[in-house]
């Protein structure tokens, strides 16, 4: 599916990345612990998280993650958005909780492993 499909499924607001919506994604991961993302994630292109700080974007950048979705209605501040722009990583926010958001994406065919 595309980032646009993820947006529709999660009824998410795009914070940054209107031009990145057509990118294909195949796998996703969900975590509030960036240490675990760095330790266990492999080739996932979407990160769902309830953590909001610049290290989320930096971690995503290191892992080649193309899209970050903030769950539970969380919104990043300007510094975080700026960082995502520099790195061309799409940012979205959904009011859904982590479990529900991950479940909906799974139901629609997105998987955890490549």
């Amino acid at each position, binding site marked *: 599916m595309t980032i646009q499909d993820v947006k529709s499924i999660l009824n998410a607001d795009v914070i940054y990345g209107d031009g990145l919506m057509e990118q294909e994604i195949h796998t996703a991961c969900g975590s509030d612990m*960036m*240490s675990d993302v760095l330790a266990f994630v492999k080739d996932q292109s979407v990160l769902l998280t309830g953590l909001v700080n610049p290290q989320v974007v930096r971690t995503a950048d290191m892992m080649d993650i193309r899209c970050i979705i903030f769950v539970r209605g969380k919104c990043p501040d300007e510094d975080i958005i700026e960082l995502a722009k520099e790195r061309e990583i799409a940012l979205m926010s959904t009011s859904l909780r982590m479990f529900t958001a991950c479940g909906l994406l799974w139901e629609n065919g997105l998987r955890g492993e490549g």
Partner: protein
Amino acid sequence: MENLIQLSYEVDGDDFTRAGEASANVKKSLRKLGVPPEVIRKVAIALYEGEINMVIHAEGGVIDVEISPEHVTMVLKDHGKGIADVEKAMQEGYSTAPDEVRSLGFGAGMGLPNMKKYSDEMEIDSTVGVGTTVTMTVYIP
């Protein structure tokens, strides 16, 4: 030696939000040089974990990176409090990071194990009260 590139970065220990800037720059340089993506990934993760560690535990330090056609070598040197028990620090899940670091998504005790996992060679030279030098090498196939 020809084709040797050296990069050096000062890591600011006071600003956690900027931790990772050096790693991002190294990643960018490797990409420009046409280094294979799997090598870039290993270097980026190992170096980012190391950089985060420097900020959490050692009030910053210096990162030197050497890029040759055969390998990428990273030397992370700090003058922090040192690691009392390196073997213990290498165990997954063992962490001495303060609670505020955990609230930022780090401090799960995966830093050093991750650095070892993603580098082909890693050496830790640490003296309590003096500081720590971590040397990591990733080979370019």
